[in-house]
């Protein structure tokens, strides 16, 4: 499978070369890099990183909106009345563990250890899905208690910000399943490995954004 990839991909360095004997493969990769500039893996990673930074800026805009509107509760409930730190702690734990398992999945794929790859991806999915389920439950509870996004400017900002993160995680879960299926169907091909790299970057970045959200939205909201 991997040797085919070298032929098909031409410039496929990262994964395809693994099929060859270690030292030779790397020397080949290096000479190719000298001839054609940086490897495709580095370029793809850089491009996706630029996208992720634009995504972080999107979240910064939503966060700025929320921060400006925190006190605009229109006589309705504030964060202090609504946020339950136990729930947030469980959500945080789920996402933190899932990001570590996502890292293990990447290691498993690079070392071609399928049990580690599929097991870690499955664990990442279960933890991510638990996170989304808890968040949906939290949202449903708030809306049923009359604290939906239409109640006040504060709640509009809150639902937009946290909901946008939740949507990102949900999209990430779909991508995760796709990556499991692609590796299953096509093997650890160079192009699949690059997609896996992008997925890992996406998932880790979502957890970094969640760190800002649980600290500055939930914890500060309860403490102030």
């Amino acid at each position: 499978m991997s040797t085919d990839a070298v032929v098909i991909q031409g410039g496929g360095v990262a994964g395809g070369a693994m099929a060859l004997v270690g030292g030779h493969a790397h020397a080949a990769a290096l000479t190719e890099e000298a001839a054609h500039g940086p490897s495709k893996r580095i370029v793809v990673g850089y491009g996706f990183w630029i996208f992720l930074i634009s995504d972080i800026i999107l979240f910064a805009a939503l966060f700025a909106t929320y921060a400006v509107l925190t006190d605009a509760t229109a006589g309705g409930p504030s964060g202090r009345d609504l946020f339950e730190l136990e729930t947030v702690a469980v959500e945080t734990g789920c996402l933190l563990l899932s990001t570590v398992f996502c890292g293990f999945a990447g290691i498993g794929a690079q070392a071609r250890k399928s049990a580690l790859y599929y097991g870690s991806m499955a664990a990442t999915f279960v933890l991510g899905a638990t996170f989304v389920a808890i968040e949906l439950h939290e949202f449903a509870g708030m809306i049923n208690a009359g604290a939906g996004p239409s109640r006040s400017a504060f709640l509009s900002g809150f639902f937009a910000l946290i909901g946008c993160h939740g949507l990102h995680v949900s999209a990430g879960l779909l991508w995760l399943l796709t990556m499991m299926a692609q590796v299953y169907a096509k093997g650890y091909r160079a192009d699949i490995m690059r997609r896996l790299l992008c997925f890992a970057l996406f998932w880790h970045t979502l957890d970094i954004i969640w760190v800002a959200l649980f600290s500055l939205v939930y914890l500060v909201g309860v403490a102030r």
Partner: protein
Amino acid sequence: MRDDPRAGGVHGDVAPGDEIGPQDLPHAVRGYLIGLVLATLLTGVSFYVAKSTLVWQPSIPIALSVLAVAQMGVHVVFFLHITSGPDSINNVMALAFGLLIVMLLVFGSLWIMTQLDHNVMPMDRLMQMQR
């Protein structure tokens, strides 16, 4: 492969997508475990600070912001690896520029909006004057 610094094991940091051999497996896993311990520690401190009365109340948002930045740093170094792997200088530059925009956006918005709040007459007072 082992004596090539780009192979990861010797360099000490494996970027996602880097080639690693089976011998580098425990090393790569250990990096994530160290990150997990540090992140859990910082998360625990954050939740404790938010709940406790030990910290001077007005300083809590600042303390939580500092802890959040520290934890995001841990995540970037131990999980994301994008700024510490080989060929990372462009990634670092992009991140630095992104952070500049994020800071301008967040602090600029807060600054302008608090100033407006401060200078604009409250709506009910305005209504009374127009009567």
